[in-house]
């Protein structure tokens, strides 16, 4: 006979139950995100946009991964599809991984060592944008770069199916090889993944979510991967929301309004300047501010006048009022002044600022008198200088400020604002004879070389190419030797290597191939129902860990 139990008895039963875990309490719901536009292909080995790396970080896995954690802990490398992070062998030329057992792709097939080997061949077959720069050190990569369709990586990637082992052989020691394996371009895909850009068709992955819908005009949707079983909380924890839905097409203004009204859960675009005050005051609890491992800087072309003159370059670095630029960026909560190449938080960063009123460790004030004197000494006063900026409202404001500053120190300065879509490639191509431009750089992985070597290394300079990220055209053999030494040292003594990188940072800063301006801070606005906000330096907001109920 059914009957009602007394309330005191129910309470007693409840007290005997174990407390519900967070995973159960907050599991479920749909995270609704807004961004003005899609970021291109959803092929994880091709797309090089931070916005989609955020997606790939919870839909795909590599052999290793960056820990899904906030702050500096998020830069730590942990084993992902590999059982452990191997110690380098053969003087840093060989890495041997053992693949975890029982991990399945989102189509149900188990991940095998052949999938890993095929994925690395696919990096070259699809001409991944980092195939040369990140993975070009694997033995056999040279041939793959020349003939991508016939890529075998013979001698570079060996597998032992019985022991579930994958062995990488490098042509030369690369202390950052493991970091590069943690990036989405090294995601493990099924061996039969087509050797071409899949565009809008999702490939099976191993993460807690799979892409179920992608229309670049309207939306991207992630749903739970039915075959996912958590194997490492550090590398790839199970997700909380049942689905993650990206909507494209709204303006940033409208996105902010929707999140304020609770119609969506997060704005992934830059918050418009005229809404910052409002969200900072009325929605402070929903705002998350995170310093980024990034710099905003002015590359100066060291190969053409007037900035082929060291004094002219130093003059610009001295003249910039970084406090004014911080204010233009939205105030001290949103940016901090910087004079050196390596941003705070990156290994090898040691505070250094020679381009300020009182040179030392931090920027205090511009030194216009010194800047004018340097321009006079350089003999470049009066020369025509054209600054290239992006044709965005913020880019235009910065351009106008910098034009005024360049005129103040003695140049016939002009500004050319060009479409944001082409500015980055335009300023890289030496055929355009860009003298000075505005740019920004964000880490690919947390290593000093990703700033110093990538932005100012001789190997990053490619004349007449749209892909010459050493925009300054800077190439100094002494510094190049120091960087080689630091790379070699990192295999055996990372601390000593970081000290050497700090010296390289100072040396390059002193030669001023670029005037570094700021460290930008990211601002993310979320709805009131979002909890457990975790922001990683690597992949921004870790969406899988957000609570929406």
């Amino acid at each position, binding site marked *: 006979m059914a009957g009602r139990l007394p309330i005191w008895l129910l309470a007693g039963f409840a007290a005997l139950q174990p407390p519900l875990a967070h995973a159960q309490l907050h599991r479920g719901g749909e995270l609704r995100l807004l961004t003005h536009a899609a970021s291109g292909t959803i092929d994880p080995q091709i797309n090089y946009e931070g916005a989609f790396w955020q997606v790939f970080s919870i839909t795909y896995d590599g052999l290793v991964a960056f820990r899904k954690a906030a702050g500096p802990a998020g830069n730590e490398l942990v084993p992902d599809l590999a059982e452990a992070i191997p110690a380098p062998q053969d003087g840093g030329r060989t890495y041997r991984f053992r693949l975890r057992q029982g991990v399945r792709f989102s189509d149900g097939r188990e991940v095998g060592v052949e999938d890993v080997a095929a994925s690395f061949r696919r990096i070259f077959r699809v001409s991944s944008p980092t195939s040369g720069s990140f993975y070009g050190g694997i033995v056999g990569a040279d041939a793959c770069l020349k003939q991508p369709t016939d890529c075998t990586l013979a001698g570079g990637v060996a597998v032992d199916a019985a022991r579930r082992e994958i062995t990488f052989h490098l042509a030369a020691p690369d202390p950052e090889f493991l970091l590069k394996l943690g990036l989405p371009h090294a995601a493990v895909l099924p061996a039969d993944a087509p050797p071409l850009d899949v565009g809008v068709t999702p490939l099976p992955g191993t993460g807690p979510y799979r892409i179920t819908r992608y229309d670049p005009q309207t939306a991207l949707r992630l749903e739970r991967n039915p075959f996912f079983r958590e194997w490492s909380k550090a590398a790839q924890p199970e997700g909380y929301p049942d689905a993650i839905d990206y909507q494209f097409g709204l303006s940033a*203004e409208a996105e902010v309004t929707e999140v304020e009204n609770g119609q969506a859960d997060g704005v992934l675009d830059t918050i*418009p*300047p*005229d*809404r*910052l*005050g*409002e*969200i*900072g*005051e*009325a929605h*402070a609890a929903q*705002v998350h*501010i995170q310093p980024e491992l990034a710099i905003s800087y002015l590359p100066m072309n060291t190969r053409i006048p007037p900035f082929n003159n060291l004094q002219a370059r130093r003059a610009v670095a001295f003249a910039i*009022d970084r*406090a*004014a630029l911080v*204010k*233009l960026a*939205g*105030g*001290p*909560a*949103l940016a901090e002044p910087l004079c050196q190449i390596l941003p705070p938080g990156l290994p090898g960063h040691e505070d250094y600022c020679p381009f300020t009123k009182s040179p030392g460790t931090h920027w205090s004030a511009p030194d216009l008198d010194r800047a004018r004197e340097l321009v006079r000494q350089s003999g470049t006063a009066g020369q025509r200088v*054209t600054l290239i900026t992006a*044709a965005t*409202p*913020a880019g*235009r*404001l910065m*351009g*106008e*400020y910098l*034009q*005024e500053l360049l005129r103040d120190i003695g140049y016939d300065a*002009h*500004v*050319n*604002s*060009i*479409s944001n879509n082409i500015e980055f490639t335009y300023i890289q191509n030496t055929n*355009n004879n860009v003298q000075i431009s505005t740019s920004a750089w964000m880490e690919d992985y947390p290593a000093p070389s990703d700033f110093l070597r990538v932005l100012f290394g001789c190997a990053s300079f490619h004349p007449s190419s749209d892909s010459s990220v050493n925009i300054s055209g800077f190439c100094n053999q002494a510094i190049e030797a120091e960087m080689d030494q630091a790379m070699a040292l990192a295999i055996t003594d990372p601390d000593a290597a970081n000290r050497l990188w700090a010296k390289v940072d100072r040396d390059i800063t002193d030669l001023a191939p670029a005037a570094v301006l700021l460290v930008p801070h990211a*601002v993310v606005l979320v709805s009131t129902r979002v909890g457990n906000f975790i922001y990683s330096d690597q992949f921004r907001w870790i969406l899988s860990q957000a609570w929406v109920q």
Partner: protein
Amino acid sequence: MRRIWRDKAALLAALVLAALLVACAAAPLYARLVSGTDPFRSNITGTIMLDGHATQVLQPSPGGLQLGVTPIGPSWHAQYLLGADGLGRDLAARLLYGGRTSLLIAGAATLCCLALATLLGIVAGYFGGIVDAILARLLDLLWAFPVFLLAISLSIVLISGGLQLGPLHIEADSLALPVSVIAVIFIPYVARPIRGQVITLQRSEFVLAAIGIGAPSWRILARDIMPHVATTLAVFAPLVMALNLLTESALSFLSIGVQPPAASWGTIIQDGQELLYTRPLVALAPGLAIVLVVVALNTLGDAFRDALDPQARLRGRG
């Protein structure tokens, strides 16, 4: 002209235009003597005295997380009368300077456009034959492009390196560049009607009589055809100038028109684009100025047409 001045709407439009022209022409005087600021110099970290208090021109958010800065709003004093823009520059002074640039470009482009269109229209219409066939097809080709698409395409190409025409080089940030682009794109809109008018005039009795008595072509063009074409141009001039002003504003808004440090109403609207929530006046004020000028020019254009072609009004009344 008396007929135009009897039209009250036209009179009001002329007065509004004259007032705006005078105000814009006096921009340097306003900046120097009234506002006491340099509208081309940023004032990001500066302060001004308002009612005895030092006030930051770009004000940090006062509470909460202190995110963002907001330019000072209208002070209703001589300095920063309408407030500041995103770089802390006096909006009222920039508005006047911007008006000078916008009106100058629109006016110069109108003159160039009318001159070239008249030349092409008359040559094509009067000489006919192969000359007409070539020129008319060229005009058709230009006409076939959507006008703003053509303007944007030309501007994007020219803005990176300027314009080189033989020995003549126009710098990318020269005002002559938007003048040239805008003048070219509207040529078919004027040249085609003029060509048609010249073809019609050629068959008129007085032109046939002039040809009959052996008058040279230049004399027929100057004495018999140009006076008629001039009335058409008088009607077209304000209308084309209104179109030119809108085009200049659009190009400058897209960063492919007037280049810094020069300002135009289009660039000021762009400056205000990211201040719409906090300081809408930065975008609204130049927008309002554009509306005023365009309405005034269109009203004047209508008045010219009515005055020079009385039958048009009769036809309009049915």
